[in-house]
């Protein structure tokens, strides 16, 4: 009898713990989502000096949007990074439709292939080759959509080439470009540039004076954009 009472008490404690844990997870996700990732206001300036500036010129990234947009958002990303994929698929369409197309922001993608990702160099080089043909963003979308295929198993070259075909890339030029490996040094420079900026993980976003490390929901990104570049009425 005493055992049954003790067991009942234990169930109550366990249930309270489960509910408290659930609430804690919800609060953690919610409160930090309000700040969107690890946010730093006025991050440390470029520490890489002239070399980093040269690297930035060698690989300035890929720009989407108007030159006259009031604000530029820089995204440091890795095509093999799952969090970048989630952002690209779930959030980026809203960003493009509601912030880039109306001319509120200009979006700059910077290559930051992480050292731990063995197929990133291949993917980023393929995107650069597609970029030669004005197909970077189409290839960008394809690489993220097919990430789970080329990032695992064999035949990554072939799988990425298939994605290039889907993106509408001319495969003759693409093959010549990938064989030449002409973007390897520039991609390495881009990675060094990102590291010099203090970027340690992907995705990282630099929105004016605000840096956000980690995924960011659309609402929070827009809130930062609104705070830095209010709409003029």
């Amino acid at each position: 009898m005493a055992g049954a009472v003790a067991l009942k008490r234990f169930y109550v404690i366990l249930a309270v713990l489960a509910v408290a844990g659930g609430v804690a997870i919800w609060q953690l996700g919610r409160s930090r989502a309000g700040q969107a990732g690890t946010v730093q206001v006025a991050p440390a300036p470029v520490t890489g000096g002239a070399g980093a500036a040269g690297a930035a010129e060698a690989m300035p990234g890929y720009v989407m949007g108007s030159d006259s947009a009031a604000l530029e958002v820089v995204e440091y990303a890795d095509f093999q990074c799952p969090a970048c994929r989630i952002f690209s698929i779930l959030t980026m369409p809203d960003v493009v439709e509601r912030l880039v197309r109306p001319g509120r922001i200009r979006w700059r993608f910077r290559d930051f292939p992480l050292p731990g990702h063995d197929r990133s160099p291949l993917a980023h080089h393929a995107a650069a080759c597609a970029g030669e043909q004005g197909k970077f963003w189409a290839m960008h979308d394809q690489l993220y959509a097919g990430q789970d295929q080329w990032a695992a198993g064999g035949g990554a070259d072939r799988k990425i080439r298939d994605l290039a075909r889907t993106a509408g890339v001319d495969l003759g030029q693409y093959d010549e470009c990938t064989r030449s490996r002409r973007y390897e040094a520039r991609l390495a420079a881009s990675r060094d540039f990102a590291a010099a900026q203090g970027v340690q993980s992907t995705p990282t976003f630099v929105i004016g004076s605000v840096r956000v490390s980690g995924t960011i929901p659309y609402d929070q990104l827009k809130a930062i954009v609104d705070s830095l570049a209010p709409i003029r009425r």
Partner: protein
Amino acid sequence: MVATTLALLGFLVALYLWMWKAGLLGAMVCGTGGCEVVQTSRYAEFLGVPVALIGAAGYLSLLVVGLAGLQPAWLERRGPTLLLLALSGVGVAFTAYLTYLEAAVIRAWCRWCVASAVIITAIFITALLGLRETAPGKREA
């Protein structure tokens, strides 16, 4: 009871990591930023399944076995404790592999993963002690 409570804690930690990995949470509270590095690395998946999801499923199994072991019909039997020991043993081995990856390959530490490592080790030790308690001639505590 201790192992069951720990299993619930482990489940909550793994659930949190998996929810972030699945994009259901805005950002991870980590402190060092190492969680994001670890969670976005290629090692955050094992055979195509997110490691955090494997952890959540493992802890849930431990929770179920732990609760079953507390039922009067099972209280005197060694089966649930043996199963707890076996499951947590697999968990400890898998965690040792993941901790090695954090230290030697990814070179970043995820505090939640370390918390999980401590929890699974504690469950294993608790199960081991429980087995001694339920040894023939002894009664389960």
